[in-house]
């Protein structure tokens, strides 16, 4: 067995050791073994580009399985979906980023831009809300002032805090405030019954109070038609 191994070692190290230095003994020292191992040629990479890998079978499921669970899943150049890259990933990243300073500058510029944009949006929303609040508060005050709940003299828990009292002086009727502050109930209106419902009534019924109508659409990048100037109010045509 040792003779066979000697021959193997000798043959593998043939190209590294010159014939003039060939040992005359029939054994290999430990140092020579280590040296042979160190200067042994690197194994050729068995990485196969997945785009051109021949599928072992025609079944798509096998191709998917080979793609998701490759044999060399822990290899850096593996095609595993978790952490796999193209072989020239570093070159590509360098082409996009350039230097670390360049990348940091771009990142900071974007974050600054976003901070300013979000601050503007926040201030804009705050201004709109404050305007709404002031208008509603003013309407409240001029129609009798803020309401405060008053507890009933009796100890009936059902009446507790149900009575309301106006605290201000009304310049305009209170119904203006009540009409403005009514909470819309989308499904309060009863469904129209009957066989022949006029078109206008049906159209009005579809406009649910408090909900955005379906004719108000989200802005899109491309609209295949212009504004509908020829819109006609639904009515029964004679």
């Amino acid at each position, binding site marked *: 067995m040792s003779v066979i191994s000697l021959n193997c070692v000798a043959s593998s190290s043939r190209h590294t050791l010159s014939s003039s230095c060939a040992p005359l003994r029939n054994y290999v020292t430990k140092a020579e073994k280590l040296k042979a191992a160190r200067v042994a040629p690197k194994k050729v990479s068995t990485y196969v580009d997945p785009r051109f890998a021949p599928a072992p079978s025609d079944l798509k499921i096998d191709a998917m399985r080979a*793609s998701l669970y490759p044999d060399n899943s822990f290899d850096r150049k593996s095609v595993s979906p978790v952490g796999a890259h193209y072989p020239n990933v570093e070159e590509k990243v360098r082409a996009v980023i350039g230097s670390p300073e360049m990348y940091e500058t771009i990142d900071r510029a974007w974050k600054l831009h976003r901070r300013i944009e979000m601050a503007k949006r926040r201030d804009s929303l705050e*201004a709109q809300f404050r*305007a709404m609040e002031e*208008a509603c508060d003013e309407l409240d005050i001029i129609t009798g002032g803020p309401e405060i709940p008053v507890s009933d003299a009796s100890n009936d828990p059902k009446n507790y805090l149900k009575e309301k009292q106006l605290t201000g002086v009304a310049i305009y009727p209170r119904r203006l405030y009540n*009409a403005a502050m009514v909470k819309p109930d989308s499904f309060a209106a009863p469904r129209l019954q009957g066989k022949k419902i006029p078109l206008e009534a049906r159209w009005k019924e579809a406009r649910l109070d408090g909900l955005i109508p379906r004719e*108000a659409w989200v802005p899109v990048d491309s609209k295949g038609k212009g504004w509908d100037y020829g819109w006609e*109010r639904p009515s029964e045509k004679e």
Partner: protein
Amino acid sequence: SSSIPPPLRASLILSRHPLIRRTPSTLELTYHAHSSALRRAISNPVPENVYFSKGSLAHRRFQKAEYEREKEAFGAAIAGTPPAVGDIPPERPLEILERDHWAKLDAERGERSLERHPDQEIFCLIKEKESKKWEFPTRTLKENDSLHTAAEQITGVGGILDGQTMDTWLVTKKPVGLTQKDGQRTFYLRSHILGGEPKLSSSGPWSDLAWLNLSELEERLKAQGDEPLWDGVKAIFGVPKIPTSELGFDEASLEV
């Protein structure tokens, strides 16, 4: 001291929503391209043998398109040689219109056009014949009127803007803003136009109508001497009293 209070007025801020998404700035477009290229660089290779049959038309189209995308992201050197796909029959061409295509077609209507500024919200102003001043459509409240019924008399059938040819939606009955002048209060309500267009009657006190974006609206009100009106109303459009600082935060709030 028992004087009759002046009647309230209801003004309508009638607007058309933006029709197309807002135009991104050069910084945004450049950053998106950079970010997409970086994502492409660190992403997984596409397993083409899973998604395509080798040599099929779809596969060749994909390879050609993918080469173009790689070239755009990393340059010709890294993209390498173009794939040998041979002749590919062209796909059905997409008709790509310009962003202001409809606005250009409707240019003859001028300021009455509802295609103006398609990526922004535009607001309705009407011009009085006598004073020749531009104002929001307003109605004084009569007895038994509430704010939203007055607004409906502006946009409803037979109203100031003739609702017969116009489809509008009142956002809410609550007022969104308030201005006061000599003891008279004007409450503002918001409404959106969904279809058709408003028509002013020739016998009425208004001569003209315009759909203006925010900057045009500010300019027009200031040009006719209505700067206090603009200051009172600008919060409804989201223009804060103190403009946002350049850095996006209040420097004084930082602890030194």
